């Protein structure tokens, strides 16, 4: 190809991407996916334990893919992408946790008398 002699801009992505980065990202993601799957299908730990474990594995895989597939660590200069990502994480946290918090309270405060009786009975038995 005659193009080869020219100094072409490095492919569209900001820095040169490497095969090793993709292989590492793929292997880690696969391991994390399978780990989460095995934890749930074994059902060996308590319910709380499983929820914490699966959520932690998901967040770990999120970070792995951001680093190895999206090359977030290779950003140079002011790290606008990272900043936008952190802002997005904040918004997502507010939306999800806020909704659950408000709706659970609403659920509790708007119980019908029958539900309230059942709820109180269930609290008594504890």
């Amino acid at each position: 190809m005659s193009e080869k002699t020219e100094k072409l801009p490095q492919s569209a992505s900001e820095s040169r991407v490497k095969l090793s980065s993709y292989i590492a990202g793929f292997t880690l993601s696969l391991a994390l996916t399978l780990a989460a799957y095995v934890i749930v299908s074994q059902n060996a730990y308590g319910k709380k334990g499983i929820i914490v474990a699966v959520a932690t594995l998901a967040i770990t895989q999120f970070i792995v893919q951001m680093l190895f597939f999206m090359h977030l660590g290779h950003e140079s200069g002011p790290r606008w992408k990272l900043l936008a990502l952190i802002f997005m994480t904040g918004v997502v946290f507010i939306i999800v946790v806020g909704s659950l918090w408000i709706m659970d309270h609403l659920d509790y405060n708007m119980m019908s008398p029958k539900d309230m009786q059942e709820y109180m009975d269930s609290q008594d038995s504890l």
Partner: protein
Amino acid sequence: MSMELTDKPVITQKDRYVKTQETDHSKTLFGFWAYLMTDCVLFASLFAVFAVLRNNTNGGPGGSELFDLPFVLTETIILLISSFVCGMVLLAAQRRARNYVLAALAIVFLLGLAFIALELTEFTHLVHEGNSWRRSGFLSAFFTLVGTHGLHITVGLLWIMVMMAQIMRKGLIDPVLRRLSLFAMFWHFLDVVWIFIFSLVYLLGSMQ
């Protein structure tokens, strides 16, 4: 740098041109990144709705009765492999290896198609058993969340077809390379969203 300047002044001019191109490039990439972040907020809203309605089954079946985990694991691994092959598209594009780019794109397309086919199989199965989005709040939220992701994948498949046509017609010129890396970002992003659908909706939803 000074060597080049004395040797071939033409190339430095080209370098400067290339440099402005590159900065424009990074702005486009950042703009697309900003779009992806807002798309995350869309998915977060749907996740929040699903989380709120997860127990509102209206007497119908819940996740533990409906979800087939080995089936969903297959979907997950297919999407993960396609995300990896999408990285190969970029690597081939860096080397300006046109045929490798086309081949890798075709593989991504087929894997994406397989994913969508599996998802539609799951959906039709659910609907045939009477567990459509009309059944309960839980199922409405489930179909909306997973369906929105599927819609994104479908758009991605259309995008791949357009990219393949452009590469065949125009070759790996700069605008095409730029669109390719935007597509790669989009596709990786969809895999990232699926991690959370797989973990939070399917894995945790299948527990009693």
